[in-house]
């Protein structure tokens, strides 16, 4: 595995505002990486620096080992969909793509084909001004797909999509990755991309707060609580406390154990031999971890 995207010591200041502050991360080929953080964390600025639209104050952001502007035929190597607003309202959807194809030296037939790939062919002759946000997102994605690139960079592509659209986007990205493609996708909602990504890069206040596989992040969720319902809650509670658990009697039929995972508690309940008719884990899930991580970064701004 080689890294397709490399961000090293990236700093970007706009006047006195530090948008990106010494950011480092890499994206391996063939993976889907979620680029996560709250609004204003510096995600869009980082992606724009990566794509040569914004000049870094210092540090580098490279694709295939070189600056984006140095790529020959960039549209055939990286497809980017940066924001849903980048359309002339009076231009037809198909013409928007024809302009890009012509400038990139891509056969014009790809414009119609890319529209079909995102399910937008019925709107080909319509002017973009009448499009919903979801339709603009799909058109932006079609623009990214024009040159059949091996890498996709998508900035908040799920914004404005309805649940069906988000479902479609997940399936689309999964299929793209399964064919060997690499995806860097930004979002401010972890749950939006959690089902799609292999890796996560989390930023807050322009700084990196976590970079790991999704599995490693999920492992951190063990700090929650395990809630059980039983017909004999008091004996269960006492037996758990006797085994050193921090257990509490709740309501009339529930016991809540903190500081231990569901696996450990379940094993113990089997040893105790008291029947349990419901068992759930509560509290610290992926979203909580995300909020906790990004809150730390936010505090520094």
């Amino acid at each position, binding site marked *: 595995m080689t890294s397709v995207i490399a961000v090293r010591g990236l700093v970007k200041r706009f006047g006195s505002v530090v948008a990106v502050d010494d950011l480092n991360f890499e994206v391996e080929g063939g993976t889907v990486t979620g680029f996560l953080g709250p609004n204003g964390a510096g995600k869009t600025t980082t992606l724009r620096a990566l794509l040569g639209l914004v000049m870094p104050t210092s540090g580098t952001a490279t694709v295939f080992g070189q600056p984006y502007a140095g790529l020959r035929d960039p549209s055939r190597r990286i497809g980017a969909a940066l924001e849903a607003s980048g359309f002339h309202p009076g*231009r037809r959807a198909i013409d928007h793509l024809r302009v890009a194809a*012509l*400038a*990139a030296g891509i056969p014009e037939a790809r414009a119609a084909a890319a529209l079909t790939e995102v399910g937008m062919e019925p709107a080909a002759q319509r002017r973009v001004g009448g499009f919903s946000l979801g339709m603009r997102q799909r058109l932006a994605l079609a623009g990214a797909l024009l040159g059949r690139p091996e890498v996709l960079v998508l900035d908040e592509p799920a914004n404005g999509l309805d649940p069906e659209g988000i479902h479609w986007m997940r399936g689309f990205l999964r299929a793209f990755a399964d064919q060997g493609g690499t995806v860097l996708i930004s979002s401010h909602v972890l749950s939006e991309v959690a089902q799609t990504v292999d890796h996560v890069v989390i930023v807050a206040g322009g700084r990196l707060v976590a970079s790991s596989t999704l599995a490693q992040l999920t492992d951190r969720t063990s700090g929650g609580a395990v809630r059980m319902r039983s017909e004999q809650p008091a004996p269960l509670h006492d037996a758990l406390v006797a085994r050193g658990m921090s257990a509490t009697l709740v309501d009339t039929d529930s016991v809540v154990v903190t500081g231990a995972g569901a696996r450990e508690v379940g094993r113990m309940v089997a040893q105790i031999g008291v029947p349990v008719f419901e068992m759930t884990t509560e509290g610290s899930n992926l979203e909580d971890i995300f909020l906790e991580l990004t809150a730390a970064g936010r505090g520094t701004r």
Partner: protein
Amino acid sequence: MISLIRAELLKLRTTRVFLGLCGATVLFTVLGVVAGVLSAGSSGSPKLGTAASARNIFGSGGPAALFALVLGILSVTGELRHGTITQTFLVTPRRTLVVAAKLVAMLIAGTALGVLAGVVTTAVAWPWLAAKDVSVSLVSSDVGPVLAAVVVGAALFGVIGVGVGALIRNQIAAVVVALVWEFVLEAILIGVVPDVGRWLPGGAARGLTRETLSSGNLLPAWGAGLVLLAYGLAFAAAGSHLLVRRDVT
């Protein structure tokens, strides 16, 4: 580079702005011809059949330059306003090539507006004058150069527009500044200080078409053309200098 120029021309053709400006060019040109023919011989205007009158009437396509200027401005500010500049620079990260393609595309589009104005002028004025028994030779030294000047002026103002748009960036501000400059400031300067006025873009444009009202104060056509070309290149150089370095956010 050829495909970049074609892409810029496709951008112009795929919105309704270009069609609208073509319509405006036709409208103003026809109005100019009508006013020129009807007012000839009255209140200081040269009589029909004179060389000066022919220059007046066949120079009616002059507004094409104005609409070429607006089109050139919109070709840059429209991209900034609607954010299409992001896609443009993603496809072509070498921004100087984008600016160069826009300049050439506007030279072509400005020429097209100028030719349109010339054709409309001729189509209205020639049969009308013939019906009034005023003979005009299209290849005469008065008519031919004036029609050519309309085309050259429109082409060069298109180029100037690209530079103005890149410098001012805000669409409405750029159009308003350009129009106020042409119609208010320059009109005053040309009248009050002709030694300065004739060197300004609007004054040079008048020199190019050899407008009769104050032609004694204007530059010769060839000099006016060179002055306009210099303005076009200067604005384009300054504008692209900014556009190439700016962050696109």
